[in-house]
């Protein structure tokens, strides 16, 4: 982790406690998680206790305290996807990649998460991998989709 990069991120925002969430979002985007050292620098610059950063980091789902995988798999659990069987898709990925929802594979290749509604209900059930969106996913199609990323 480079200290300078964190400083650059902080410099883009106002040095006020109210900017904390926005700064952490940028840090998360940069490192795919919130490294402890980075959080320490941020709270130091904003002159607030580290506990505040931790409380936010554990409250909002956008943040992670552990390193995340290179590819982020999100299975939509919106209502439309649910009634069209997205739960089965999620379980299938869990079995195939040997990873639980909310966690990352040991080789740091994939992180698997549930997400509530991506707003593409017409394509339900929906899975996204990084920026790619897959609609009308079936149990049969899923392994082929995952193959593209390994």
């Amino acid at each position: 982790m480079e200290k300078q990069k964190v400083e650059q991120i902080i410099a883009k925002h106002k040095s006020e406690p109210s900017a904390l969430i926005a700064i952490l979002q940028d840090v998360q985007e940069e490192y795919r998680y919130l490294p402890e050292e980075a959080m320490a620098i941020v709270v130091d610059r904003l002159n607030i206790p580290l506990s505040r950063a931790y409380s936010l980091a554990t409250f909002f789902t956008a943040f992670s305290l552990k390193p995340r995988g290179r590819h982020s798999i999100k299975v939509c659990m919106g209502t439309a996807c649910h009634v069209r069987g997205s739960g089965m898709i999620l379980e299938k990925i869990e079995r195939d990649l040997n990873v639980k929802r909310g966690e990352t594979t040991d080789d740091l290749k994939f992180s698997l998460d549930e997400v509530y509604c991506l707003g593409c209900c017409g394509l339900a059930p929906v899975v996204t991998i990084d920026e790619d969106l897959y609609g009308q996913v079936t149990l049969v199609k899923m392994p082929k989709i995952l193959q593209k990323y390994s």
Partner: protein
Amino acid sequence: MRPFRANLMICGGTACVSNRSFDIKKALEKEIEKQGLDDEIQVVTTGCNGFCAAGPLMVVQPEGIFYGHLMEKDIPFLVEEHFLKGRPVKNLMYVPPETEVPIPKMNDIDFFKGQILIALRNRGLIDPEKIDEYIGREGYYGLLKVLTSMTPDEVIKEIKDSGLRGRGGAGFPTGVKWELTRAADGDLKYIVCNADEGDPGAFMDRSIIESDPHSVLEGMVIGAYAMGASQGYIYIRNEYPLALQRLLIAIDQARDYGLIGENILGSNFSFDINVTRGAGAFVCGEETALISSIEGKLGNPKPRPPYPTTSGLWGKPTNINNVETWANIPVIINRGANWYSEIGTETSKGTKVFSLVGKINNTGLVEVPMGITLNDIVNKIGGGIPDGKKFKAIQTGGPSGGCIPAEKLDLPVDYESLAKAGSMMGSGGMVVMDETTCMVDVARYFLTFTKDESCGKCTPCREGIAQLHRILTKITEGEGTMEDLELLENLANVIKDTSLCGLGKSAPNPVLTTMRYFKDEYLAHITDKKCPARVCRQLNTYVINAEICASKGHGCGVCRRECPEQAISGEKNISHIIDQEKCVKCGVCFDVCKFNAVTIE
């Protein structure tokens, strides 16, 4: 400027983009150039057209011809036939399932017929990244009108007279809220646009921002003028990258034009807008939690009063409206309260945007007048239930709402009628359920969501919902008892009465409405240990009927090949067998068997 003779309006909403509509656009442009038509025909990317089920789609103007399910390979033929030779291509048009006759014009398709577009007035007509096109549709005329000819009090009166109520869920009269904010003490006031659309199954706010971001900005500037606010915030959900991008472009353009910022349109009124990204917490849709989050703090709700209108963001008077509410404002000002209040019912004026999803043919975004019946939405606009299945229920209001059964389909859609039926308007998600949807599972599903999203501050919500969820899980696994039903109801009412914020207060609604209208399904799970809809997997066993498989299917092996767990064994001409140990009860074999040899027991 040399005019074009045709504009091809390609849908650039999230669902169509996911279906590669940008590739279709490129292919069109290439082919149009090849045919030498590029100075006659223009291709335009618009926001969400609404008819997501037909995507990727485009509308050809001025004729209004609708093409759906486009593929790149269709484009050369389409360009030559329609745009060179003037013969619209029938097999790319929409075909309603019941008649099988293609319908050329968008406005003749049932999905579009019953709609009245106010909040979505520019849908499919403008490029959301071009402010001039918004102005070309009389955009910012409402702002011009208030700045040149209306006092703030007159603006508030107009909004009050229009009868507009908050489109985010609770339905509080917008004009009254504005009046309270204006009357509140304090020289510094804020307004906020709530774009933290969190209800699963709802995407109207995202679509409005994606297709017409300036309508929201203009509404906010008008509101700021009326309430005397100098700073506005838009709190947008993190999962909406395309909406965020278009919003930021729109704000830059409006600022360049001096439509936000210092001395708007040369007047002495100044107002600016900031964008705050949400960080993924459903509770932040609740207004006090949202305010906390903008302040950089935990998204915890606070007890009200004081209401944000007197003490909101940084303790200052703050008015919060959602995206759809703001998008209605410019039109109400421009065309007047009288015009607006003639649409809708006695207590619910105007239109409402709904996202129509689930087990329905015409999935998409619709804007309909208040008072329309659920039946018209489901069967006329929505085109009914796919695969000849039977309608069972429609869920409105997201996790805070409830399920309305088939016998109440002629219910008019307005705030009061939905509440009386035990549901609510909510932000506008409508999820259609058919005979293959299990209502106990649906209740459990929503409770899974609210359990995960409860902020944990108050006990009834944090512990109560978890307990409701545990009982429901027990029932779906066939372990429920009759006492559980009583417990569910008691506990649900306690949570309703004692939770701190709206999330907890409304969380039991899905349980209460499904118990009210679908008690027999609960009883089937408890006494017969059966899931009538065959959804609750612990209660299902998939079995292959040996005789049918061997005699009719001749052991075709499709199920064996498709089974994701290799749980099926068998050979040609011999009946196949499911290994119940390996079976995960996914239902693929049931779906793929052409001979109906797979049964659920």
